[in-house]
C-alpha cells in the first residue's frame, strides 16, 4: 500500500503543479524581449518576483491590478481557450465562441488571484530552452519558496501574435492546457458535444468564483 503513496503523490504533485503554478502561467511580461523565449521568461520572472515580494509598498489590491495587467499583455489567453475546446471550437457558433472566451478569461483571472498569497517570497532560476515540434519553445525554470520544496516549471512560449506569449505551463510532466482540454473534451463528449451545456457549467463556475471573491 505504501507504493500507492508514490502514485498518489505523483498524481497529487501533478495536481499541485497544475493548481499551484497556474499563477505563474499568467504573470509573464514580455517587455522588450521580442523573439528570445529565455529572455522573455527571464524578464517575466524578474517582474513577477518584484511584484510578489513587494509587501511593503504595494498593497494587495495594487498587486492584483499589476498582475492582471501582466496577464493581459503576456499570456495568450484566447489561444489557450481555443486549444482547450479542441475540435469543438470549429463547431461552436461565433456567439458561443465569444461567450466562451469571456468565461474562460474570467476563470483564468480568478484562478490566478485566488493563489496570490501562495507565492510570497518566491524566487526563480532560469534553466534551458527546448524547442518543440509545433514551433513553440519550453523554457524551464525552478521556483523556490521560503517554506516549500522547489518546483520545476516549464513555460511554453508561443508566437501566435507578433510578440512571444505564454501559451502553456508544464509542471510535474503535465501540461496545464492539455489537461484542461482533456477535461473540457471529456465533459462535452459526455454531454453530446453540446457547447451550450459547457457554457452553462462554466458560467456557474464563474458565479461561484464571484461569490467566493466577495
Amino acid at each position: 500500500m505504501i507504493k500507492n503513496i508514490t502514485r498518489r503523490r505523483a498524481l497529487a504533485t501533478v495536481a499541485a503543479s497544475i493548481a499551484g503554478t497556474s499563477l505563474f502561467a499568467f504573470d509573464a511580461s514580455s517587455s522588450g524581449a521580442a523573439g528570445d523565449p529565455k529572455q522573455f521568461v527571464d524578464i517575466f520572472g524578474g517582474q513577477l518576483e518584484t511584484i510578489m515580494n513587494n509587501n511593503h509598498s504595494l498593497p494587495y489590491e495594487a498587486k492584483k491590478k499589476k498582475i492582471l495587467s501582466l496577464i493581459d499583455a503576456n499570456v495568450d489567453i484566447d489561444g489557450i481557450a481555443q486549444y482547450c475546446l479542441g475540435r469543438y471550437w470549429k463547431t461552436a457558433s461565433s456567439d458561443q465562441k465569444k461567450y466562451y472566451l469571456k468565461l474562460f478569461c474570467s476563470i483564468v483571472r480568478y484562478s490566478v488571484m485566488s493563489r496570490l498569497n501562495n507565492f510570497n517570497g518566491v524566487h526563480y532560476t532560469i534553466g534551458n530552452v527546448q524547442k518543440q515540434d509545433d514551433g513553440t519553445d519550453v523554457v524551464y525554470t525552478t521556483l523556490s519558496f521560503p517554506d516549500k520544496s522547489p518546483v520545476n516549471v516549464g513555460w511554453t512560449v508561443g508566437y501566435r501574435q507578433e510578440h512571444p506569449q505564454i501559451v502553456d505551463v508544464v509542471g510535474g510532466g503535465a501540461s496545464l492546457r492539455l489537461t484542461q482540454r482533456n477535461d473540457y473534451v471529456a465533459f462535452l463528449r459526455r454531454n453530446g458535444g453540446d457547447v451550450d451545456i459547457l457554457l452553462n457549467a462554466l458560467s456557474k463556475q464563474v458565479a461561484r468564483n464571484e461569490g467566493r471573491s466577495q
Partner: protein
Amino acid sequence: MSRYLGCVILLLLVSCSSMKAPVPKDPDDLADYKAANDKYEPLNRKMFNLSMKVDKWIFHPAAKAYVWAVPRPIRDSIGNLIRTQNEPSVFFNDVAAGRPRRAGDAFVRWVINMTAGIAGFMDVAKIAGIPHHGNDAGLTMANWGVPSGPYLFLPIGPSSFRDGFGYAIDQGLSPWDYAPRGFGLLSFNWAYNLMGVVHARADHLDDLAVVERDALDPYATIRSAYQQERKAQAEAIKNDHRATVPDWYDR
C-alpha cells in the same frame, strides 16, 4: 447444471461488456477515444466514484485531523521516513532499468538516511546533494518498452495495466514485507503504510480540492494528469545519461 453454468457465463459476458466503453464510429470521437486510452472507462468511473466516496468519508477527514494535530516538522519527518523506506524498491528498479547512477544514488540515500538520518526521519542525503528520485516497476517496464495498456482506476488510485502489474511487483520489494512474524514488525508495516496514505493525502488537501471544485470532469482531469506525468517520468529515466561515477569521486 449446464443451464446454470450457461447463465453465469452469460452474466459474466454481459457484465464484461458493460465494463468497456463502446468504440465510437465518428472519426473525431474515435480520435478522442484512442487519445484517452481508456477502454474500461465505465468500470473506471465506477471505481473512481467509489474511491471519492471513501476519500470523502475516511481519508480526507483523517488527513485534515493529521494536519491539525501533527506539527509541520514532524509531518516532514514522517515524509522522510516513508521516502527512505521506499529507497530499496527504487534501488532495485533502477538496477532493473539499467540505470546504475540512479541506483547508486538510491543506495547512498538509503545508507545515509538510515544512519545519519536516524532511520530515515531526516533527509540528510538531500542536504548532501543527493535528492530523492522515484522509480517503480511500472516505470522500469516502461523503460524496457512495455506499453502501458489501457488506463485503469484501481482502489490504490490511477494506474494502467502495466503500472498495476508493476505495483504488485513492488509489493515484493519492500523489506518490511519479509519481516518474520512475532516481532511486531508486521504491525509496524501496516501502521506505517496507513500513516503513509494519510500523510500523502494530507500533503495535497488543497490541490485535490481544487481539482474536485474546478474541473468539469475530475475523473478525466486526473486521468490526463496521471498519463502525462507517467510518460514524463519514463522519459526522464530513459534520458538520464549521467556518468555512473559521480564527479566528486574522482577528486
